[in-house]
């Protein structure tokens, strides 16, 4: 096809082709949001309930349930492979969003790994605590949830704005409000329980609901 055409037709063709690639919503994105959203929602709700009903000596063992997040890894890998096979184009927005979520994951892993290393290696050696300062042993753990929620807010807000998908932006704003709420009520005697409940609400608002809406939108684009 070597037909030549006018400058007007030329510009129309460029505009049409650019917008056809630009408005392409990645198929399978909703499933990834649902995977992590449901995992966090179920685990945080389970921990909240266990902390309500378990005796004081054992209730903090319920935090071990977070290790179940590891099952998300292989499932995530499978979903990404499926997504790569389904999607025929990768826009610059998709590429940048990949980096945003990689940065988000690295930030999360850094915080959690740091806390675990501190608990296993540093804390046992940390014996000579001044009387009245025993709280230093568990105090850093109370920061994990607000830090995580703040990171959720950041990644969700950026994704929502990049893909022009409002439910993600709303989810991000809810996570930021939740972060502020948890910091303001830091002194509350039931803080750890409240944190799990807030985490559950944020997982539903930031991942589960937008995930279902994304799936609906993806299917309507077929």
């Amino acid at each position, binding site marked *: *096809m*070597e*037909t*030549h*055409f006018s*400058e*007007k*037709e*030329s*510009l129309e*063709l*460029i505009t*049409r*082709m*650019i917008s*056809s*690639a*630009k408005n392409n919503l990645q198929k399978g994105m909703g499933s990834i949001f649902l995977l992590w959203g449901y995992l966090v929602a179920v685990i945080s709700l389970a921990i909240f309930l266990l902390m309500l009903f378990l005796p004081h000596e054992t209730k903090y063992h319920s935090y071990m349930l977070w290790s179940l997040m590891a099952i998300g890894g292989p499932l995530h890998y499978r979903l990404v492979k499926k997504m*790569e*096979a389904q999607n*025929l*184009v*990768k*826009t*610059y927005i*998709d*590429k940048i969003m990949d980096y945003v979520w990689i940065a988000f994951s690295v930030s999360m892993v850094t915080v959690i790994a740091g806390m675990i290393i501190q608990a296993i290696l540093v804390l046992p050696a940390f014996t000579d605590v001044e009387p009245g300062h025993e709280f230093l042993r568990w105090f850093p753990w109370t920061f994990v949830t607000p830090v995580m929620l703040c990171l959720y807010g950041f990644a969700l807000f950026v994704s929502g704005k990049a893909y022009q998908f409002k439910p993600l932006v709303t989810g991000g704003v809810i996570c930021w409000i939740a972060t502020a709420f948890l910091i303001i009520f830091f002194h509350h005697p039931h803080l750890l329980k409240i944190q799990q409940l807030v985490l559950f609400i944020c997982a539903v608002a930031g991942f589960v609901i937008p995930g279902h809406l994304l799936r609906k939108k993806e299917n309507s684009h077929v």
Partner: protein
Amino acid sequence: MYNDLDPLLHSQLRLAIMSILVSADEADFVFIREKTGATAGNLSVQLEKLKEAGYLEIRKSFKGNYPCTTCKITPPGIKAFEQYVTTLQDYIKPGQS
């Protein structure tokens, strides 16, 4: 009249290919075929011409058990496209249409 326009880009299918690739990081052969409405044979020929000019890279791989051809625009390709659009804008300056 169109002497200044890059002849390689001033063809409907090749311009369509370049427009898609300039807005996407990379695109599959099937995606380009669907969007341009071209036949597979014609598309292959035009992609090859653009590749020979150094305007794009073509990578052949497998997605599961299926072969796939992925196209990506190169920096010289972006430069040529930008030059093409600039020249086009000069033609469409007010009073000339």
